[in-house]
């Protein structure tokens, strides 16, 4: 029996309204259930747009012109509104503050915002809120005002607000860009736990070391096209990726030390490579 991919793009092209060039210029890729895909690339490569397409914000929110085939869980994104998709797909943005509803005074109420709009019964909402707060380790702050939380805690709150809907696919658009190192580590640990329990994750990230360490598959974009797709070691050995995006620190060190490609991209691999050398 053929297993349907979670996310499937076939020759997808997308141009924002009033834009001169296509933000996505012929991308074909599939993501299967349970994968954790890191998406990297320079500015204006189309990374965020890829997330917006998968969520349906492009074209439903932004307008613009979408061509090609794009399905999420087998459903054409053009045929399903963003809010309707929110029970299976979640999208976490960069800015923790603008993801707050601004209409709730407690962390637990903030997390309950989405299920309320979906009309879920009160007892089920309570169970889901507890579950979501446990997943992101914010149970102890359930009664706090959201604006009393740190940036890292707010981003985990935003994640909990998505997890409460039990999404099967999580899209993350540079989730750690506004977090300090401690907040970044805490968030990435939560994501690692979600992946272990079966959630499919597509993560746009500029922190190449995190991508290399956590994502078994990396997709590199440039100018709206896929330039590399595969395991991190193979992707970062591609000269086109090095030129457009750069290399993780360990790979740069190994390259500078004269080691041959593929260079190590994690601390464990670097340790082995340098011991061998």
């Amino acid at each position, binding site marked *: 029996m053929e297993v349907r991919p979670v996310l499937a793009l076939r020759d997808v092209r997308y141009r924002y309204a009033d834009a001169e060039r296509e933000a996505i210029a012929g991308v074909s890729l599939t993501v299967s259930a349970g994968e954790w895909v890191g998406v990297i690339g320079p500015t204006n490569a189309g990374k965020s747009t890829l997330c917006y397409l998968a969520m349906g914000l492009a074209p439903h929110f932004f307008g613009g012109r979408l061509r090609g085939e794009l399905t999420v869980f087998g459903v054409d994104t053009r045929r399903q509104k963003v809010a309707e998709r929110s029970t299976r797909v979640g999208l976490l*943005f960069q800015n923790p503050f603008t*993801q707050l509803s601004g*209409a709730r005074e407690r962390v637990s109420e903030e997390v309950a915002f989405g299920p309320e709009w979906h009309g879920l019964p009160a007892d089920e*909402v309570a169970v889901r809120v507890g579950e979501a707060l446990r997943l992101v380790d914010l149970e102890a702050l359930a009664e706090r005002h959201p604006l009393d939380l740190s940036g890292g805690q707010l981003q985990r709150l935003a994640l909990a607000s998505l997890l409460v809907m039990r999404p099967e696919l999580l899209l993350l658009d540079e989730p750690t860009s506004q977090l300090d190192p401690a907040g970044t580590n805490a968030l990435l640990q939560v994501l690692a736990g979600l992946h272990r329990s079966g959630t499919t994750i597509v993560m746009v990230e500029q922190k190449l070391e995190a991508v290399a360490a956590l994502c078994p598959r990396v997709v590199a974009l440039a100018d709206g096209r896929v330039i590399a797709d595969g395991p991190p070691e193979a992707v970062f050995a591609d000269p086109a990726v090095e030129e457009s995006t750069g290399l993780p620190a360990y790979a740069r060190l190994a390259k500078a030390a004269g080691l041959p490609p593929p260079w190590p991209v994690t601390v464990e691999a670097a340790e082995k490579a340098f011991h061998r050398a």
Partner: protein
Amino acid sequence: MARGLSLYVEGDSPLHRAHPFTKGVLTLSAIAVAFIAPSWAWVVGIGLLVICLQLIAGVFRRFLVVAITLLAPITVLLLIVQGLVNPANRTVVVPAGGFSLYREGLLIALLTAARLVDLIAATFLFSFATRPQDLAEALIQKGLSPRIGYVVQSALQIIPQTLEMVSRIQDAQRARGLETEGRLLTRARAFIPLLLPVVLSSLVATQERAMALDVRGFGLPGARRQRYVLPDSVGQRVLRWALVALVPAAVVSRILGWR
């Protein structure tokens, strides 16, 4: 970060537990009757009633701060202006040549000040004892669009956040050498370079928030689940109608000259 514009004070008094509509009708009736009613007895009676309710709700001290900082200077100003130049002035109370204060003007000033006290006291009683979320939820349960209810609830949190953003942009511009203090002309000139970043940042933040709400299912058609039950008894409903009935009663009283 600023939490919000709400004046709500946490509490568990009978006022806090009352339905938001009961508190709203009480406030509006008190204000209407205070301004319509023909005599001191009504105005002072309403003021005393509202202050008693503030004491029950445990918010009287907060109102006292407002009364001293806001109402006291206004009252003094009224007394001076009305006492000096009201056309009905006849009886000198404080002789001071051309600046004598007259009884008629002073009494009118005091009545106006008492009405303002009733207005402010009733409004603040409502604000201190009513959680904005409860008011929005009550309105939604009575048929207000949940989207509009959300706008009402979120404005109170988002406005102070926007003001903090303005302050941060101001600091950033100052660090680049922009003068934002001093003479009026200097401050006016500083307005232009602040305006564009504030507007752009606000637009970006609004767009991001709208996307985040969409992603969480905001605005899904169909029944939005009632968040919680707001207790509302038959007694409260009767009380609301009685409070509403006070307004035409005050009008009739004024027309017939009852005191």
